């Protein structure tokens, strides 16, 4: 029995991303493709998302011209590939406030947004620091916080302090403070609805960019594999490792159940297809009675 279908929908990508950004310490090891994705969770009369991407009107030219980000597509186009529309989305879990995760709330006019309160409060604090400490406020657009003001006024913004169980039936939020960002979080789907679930999926946000963050070679310390954190942390790599351990423990250490969203290799672990726009849709699991969107 499965309550929810889960799809990872690519909405843009960077063809050549430096590997050391993905994997801490992987300097001079070349480039990897970095897909930009969000996650759609459908079931129990809900359509939810983990993150909402960015708005190309605001950032597209800069990203395209300067950073090689390619092939951005509107959520209407991307979500249609899994049979839903932005208006159908009632719940959005924002894993963190970076522009490519929280930068397009306006395209989801009926959704309620969940974000860790620490993600906002610490960012306000970081904005108050002297210019010499400006590094701590990278990749966040004040405009997204401005739009958060509108969401709060409409009672569509929920700030979460730590973990939150059953936000939707069988879906929990978990905090990873001072890790990738000040208030990153991941989403856990207990797809059989049980407290002690045998069918758990973890949607990792940017706490894990790719599977290699979970199963990197451990040769250097004489073990088969070891966790290796992502390259960017305004908190600490230690906290990323601790979060990874907690995510892995939730899925009984079955690494394929921790879903990274910047991972091209999802295609090797799950059924997927390329859309007519050249973007990948990956089907993580299907709810009972749901038809495949990648067959």
């Amino acid at each position: 029995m499965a309550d929810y279908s889960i799809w990872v929908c690519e909405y843009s990508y960077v063809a050549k991303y430096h590997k050391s950004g993905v994997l801490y310490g992987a300097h001079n090891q070349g480039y990897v493709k970095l897909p930009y994705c969000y996650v759609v969770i459908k079931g129990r009369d809900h359509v939810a998302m983990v993150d909402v991407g960015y708005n190309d009107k605001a950032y597209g030219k800069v990203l395209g011209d300067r950073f090689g980000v390619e092939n951005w597509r509107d959520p209407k186009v991307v979500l249609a590939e899994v049979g839903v529309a932005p208006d159908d989305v009632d719940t959005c879990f924002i894993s963190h406030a970076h522009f490519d995760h929280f930068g397009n709330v306006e395209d989801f006019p009926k959704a309620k947004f969940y974000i860790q309160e620490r993600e906002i409060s610490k960012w306000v604090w970081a904005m108050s620091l002297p210019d010499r400490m400006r590094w701590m406020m990278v990749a966040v657009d004040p405009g997204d916080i401005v739009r958060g003001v509108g969401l709060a006024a409409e009672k569509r913004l929920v700030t979460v302090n730590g973990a939150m169980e059953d936000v939707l039936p069988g879906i929990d939020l978990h905090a990873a403070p001072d890790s990738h960002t000040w208030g990153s979080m991941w989403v856990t789907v207990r797809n059989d609805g049980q407290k002690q679930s045998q069918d758990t999926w973890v949607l990792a946000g940017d706490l894990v960019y790719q599977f290699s963050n979970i199963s990197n070679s451990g040769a250097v310390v004489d073990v088969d594999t070891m966790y290796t954190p992502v390259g960017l942390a305004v908190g600490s790599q230690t906290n990323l490792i601790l979060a990874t351990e907690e995510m892995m423990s939730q899925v009984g250490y079955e690494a394929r159940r921790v879903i990274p969203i910047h991972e091209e290799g999802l295609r090797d672990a799950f059924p997927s297809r390329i859309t007519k726009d050249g973007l990948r849709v990956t089907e993580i699991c299907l709810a009972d009675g749901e038809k495949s969107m990648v067959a």
Partner: protein
Amino acid sequence: MTAVDLFMRLAQTHKPDCHMSLDGPPPETVPDPEEMARTLGSDVVGRYAAACRPVYEDLRRVIGQVSGLLILARLTSRTEIADLNEMQLCRARWREAAERLATLEAPTGLSQHKVQLTSAHHFSGEAMNAFAGLRSGVDNSTELDRMGIQIKRAYAHLEAASSSKAGLQMVDFTHACCSCAQQN
């Protein structure tokens, strides 16, 4: 700020909760320094752009902070926000921006660019100063709504004054998920 007939503006164009319902020059894209360099010469424009950067950064930060504090005020119904250390730092930065704006000389052709910065400063200040007027034990929704509109308007002006190549941009992408393969 230019006065416009309120009835006409509301009736014809904007709902009361729209940031465009506020008086003042509209936020509109103006020739950015990069564009103007082609007609005015790069030196004079380059000097202007360099002088703009700290003002732009101050305003970007003030708008971000005020927005975050507004969310806090809305969600907690607490009114002591005006006393927070972050708010004092925000005020100090806003005053710094005022001093820098006062000495910022826009070359001919870029005066509208400076208007956008000045308007962003004005509206962010309106929102920031309004925190002191929030009262405990009463419903501050009307005031918070107004502050939300003001900060949205401030952001719209700053966005209009943005220019990636002049180093005036909202997001620092240097360590973002996309900060690779930098083209220039």
